[in-house]
């Protein structure tokens, strides 16, 4: 078994400590060690975006990040985003526009959407599409997802 490392970081605004194997991904740590299952395991190789989280404000695929690299950093998952006003707008917009079908891609979509809107408060459609390139929806509900992000932006 892999050597275990003690790390400490801010998770959704709260300081957390964890002991994680050195080769573990941030995704497995979040789900299996810390019990935050909102972040989803899709492809495990950075293609689908279901595991998207924010690290120091930037979106990354948590399946590609080593858990140990969270040490000393600020990590936000879909659970932590819930407290945010922007996230509340996104949540309503996703519901109102029917942007959720099976829902598996939704946490990653919402996290990535929050990143897009943090960087571009009034994005055009192309910017939203470009920003969501790394997030797959296999129900293929992209149009409604893009509509929802655009609607959340308009309310800001």
């Amino acid at each position: 078994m892999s050597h275990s490392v003690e790390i400490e970081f801010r998770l959704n605004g709260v300081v957390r400590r964890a002991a994680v194997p050195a080769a573990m991904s941030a995704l497995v740590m979040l789900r299996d060690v810390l019990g935050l299952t909102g972040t989803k395991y899709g492809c495990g190789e950075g293609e689908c975006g279901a595991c998207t989280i924010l690290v120091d404000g930037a979106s990354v695929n948590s399946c590609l990040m080593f858990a140990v690299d969270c040490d000393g950093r600020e990590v936000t998952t879909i659970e932590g985003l819930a407290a945010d006003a922007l996230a509340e707008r996104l949540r309503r917009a996703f519901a109102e526009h029917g942007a959720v079908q099976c829902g598996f891609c939704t946490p990653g979509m919402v996290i990535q959407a929050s990143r897009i809107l943090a960087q571009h408060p009034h994005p055009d459609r192309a910017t939203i599409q470009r920003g969501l390139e790394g997030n797959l929806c296999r129900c293929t509900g992209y149009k409604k997802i893009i509509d929802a992000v655009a609607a959340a932006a308009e309310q800001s």
Partner: protein
Amino acid sequence: MGAVERYAAPLSLAEALDLLRAGDVTIVAGGTDLMPQSHSGKVRFGSLLMNIRRVPELGGIALEGDTVRIGALTSITDLLESRLVRERLPIVAEAADHFASEQVRNGATVGGNVCNASPAGDMLVPLIVLDAAVELAAKPNGAVETRSMPLREFLTGPGRTQRAPHELLTAVRVPLPPPGFVARFYKHGTRPALDISTISIGIGGVKRGDKLENVHVVFGAVAPTPIRARATERVLEGRPLDAAVIEAAAEAAHDEGRPISDVRASAWYRQELVRNMTKRILAHVAFG
């Protein structure tokens, strides 16, 4: 997966180099290539996993004289956000813009893309067009020593480089292109995002009137490493970019690589792409 016995996150270059000298080290930065490679069994972890993300000497993009030093830890997003890169090395920004997805661009580093040495590595082609060099550091006898070599010599095969096990790639150095320099990058994939290049092409040169001088043509994913397309360059060098020269260059380009057939494309298709896209890029450079 090999068993990692120890983890270290050094806070200085000297400390990182000391750890490297001790041997059997797997280096991690962004993790975007390492993590999937470790899952697929392509990479076996060494007994020490060394996270270099907290080594300050490896960061930053800076103009040093007539060279842009891009620290190994520079993320692809950092390249896109750098005014220096956008204004002075636009072909690098162009390639960064076609790189994977935002999530991957935020994590992946220039040093990782170079050391991973994929024949299809997106940053390699534009950097070779610009005659970039890699900067390597080691600490063999108690003092930090650095050496430098052209990127195209550094890459020796798929996943293989001239980096010695005790060395760390610290930066990529890019000489500022001369006045009149123009360059284009083209990447072919089946969708705009996240595709590994079927082929990629970088063409650069100094434009004087209707001629290109000091022409650099580089192809990715048609050989074990990105290659300088010397025959194509000879066709173009100093000659007016008219239809006949462009046609001759495209024919030369077709025969330049030795592509393989794989899940992304057959060798035949790759060669056709190289011919046709070389023609298209040259037409843009000539008339655009």
